[in-house]
Every structure is written in C-alpha cells, then in structure tokens.
C-alpha cells in the first residue's frame, strides 16, 4: 500500500513524531511505499539539524534523516509553517534576509500543495498529532 504521512507536532514535546517514525519504518520494512512525509504546524521542528538531545535519548531528527537515507524518503516541511517558526534553508534565508539556516539536509521546504498531492497520490493519508 502507498501511504502519505502528516506530522502535526514538534519533537520531544509530543509523541506524534515518534509514532509516525515507528509507523513509517515498519511500513517500509513490510514492503509498503511511503509517498511522502509532510511536516506541518509545530511538526516543522522535526527538521532542524541543530537539535542536540542528551546522548542517552533518541535523536528524532537524525532518525528521520537516516530513514530517508536508507529508503529515499521524501521529507517535506511546510514553507508557511516553517517561516512562522524559524526553520530556514538557503533559499528562504536569501528571500527573507536571514543570516543563518538550520534545516537538516535530508529535509526540504516546500508548499502545502505537496501535502495535497501526497493525499491524492496515496492510498491512505495517516495523520499524527493531537
């Protein structure tokens, strides 16, 4: 089956990203396809490379990145939500005059159309959040 994943909450504060990760990893291991993982609302916080959790805790951002590396996952962060919350890539930094970037290289910033497209193209949209 082909899944689209939507994550609406940030890392650590909320379990949504953990549950989505476990679901996504298991689905891939079982041979299913993940069309796209879309991060919305505070979920965009899952995409910052500056995250530094204690060493004995899981690294939520790197874990997503490693899964993306292994399976070629498309990890997309909503641009409007990212702008509000200060998640920045090179293009956004240039457009908005910011002096730094913080997005993890395995994530990309794009528009809400990517979420709609994922829902259209997939058999199921699974939403993780409150």
């Amino acid at each position: 089956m082909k899944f689209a994943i939507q994550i609406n909450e940030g890392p650590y504060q909320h379990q949504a990203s953990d549950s989505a990760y476990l679901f996504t990893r298991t689905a891939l291991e079982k041979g299913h396809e993940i069309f796209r993982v879309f991060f919305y609302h505070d979920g965009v916080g899952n995409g910052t490379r500056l995250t530094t959790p204690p060493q004995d805790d899981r690294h939520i951002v790197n874990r997503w990145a490693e899964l993306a590396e292994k399976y070629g996952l498309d990890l997309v962060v909503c641009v409007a939500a990212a702008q509000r919350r200060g998640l920045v890539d090179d293009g956004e930094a240039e457009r908005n005059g910011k002096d730094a970037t913080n997005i993890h290289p395995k994530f990309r910033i794009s528009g809400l159309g990517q979420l709609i497209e994922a829902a259209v193209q997939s058999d199921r949209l699974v939403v993780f959040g409150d």
Partner: protein
Amino acid sequence: MSEEIKNFLYLNRRAPYGTIYAWESLEVVLIGAAFDQKVSLAFVDDGVFQIVKGQKTEQIGMKNFSPTYSALGDYDVNQLYVERESLEERGLTVDDLMHLTWEDEDEDWAEKDSIRVVSRAEMAEIITQQDVVFSF
C-alpha cells in the same frame, strides 16, 4: 492538476484561537481548492466556534481570520457540515453561526447555504464516505 478526484474532508475539531490549528487548517483548504478535489469541511467539538459570527480578536492581538470562511464559496468549497450535538453541548444554535453561502452556477447563480447541521451519527457516516480526512 490530477486526473483522479477524491473526496477530501477537513475535520476541524478545535477552537479558532488558543492554538494555530484552525488557521493553518484553513490555509490547507485554500491551497487544496486549486486541486479540483471534492472538498467538504466538518466542524465538531470546539471546532464549531470557528464559524461563530461576530468574532473580535483585537484584545488578544491575533488576526481575526473568520471572514475567510465567507470566501470559501468562491473557491467551490460549499459543503460545510456542523455537528448538532457539538453546538448544543456549547449552548449554540445555527443562528450563532456566520451565514455562509455560495452561488450555484448551474441554477443561475442562485445563492445557497453552505452550512448543513447534521447529527453525530450522520457525521460519522459522512466521515466514513471520505477518501481522505485531514484532521486538525
């Protein structure tokens, strides 16, 4: 943009202010309207407060985005289901809601109501009929 047409339901469960879910949900609806899917909105639980009329936000320093709901008809988003029990539990009636309408081009642009009040059981049925449910 896609040859496939699906039934999209945006399930709005939260109050308009206090969290950003309602506002960012509406942003998805507006972008999604360009994709030619069959779109409905549902308002349940505190989500019914999103379309209450006479919203004033000056004192909390937030943008009053409720006028945007009035524009949905122009985006061909004209199926708005409101759960009766959610209204009643909050002391609201349909008269407390904005009068949201759309113009039916197949009937000489007749103005029609977008809001339909349905029971909880009917809402469950509406949800099961969808291909995609965006839950906010």
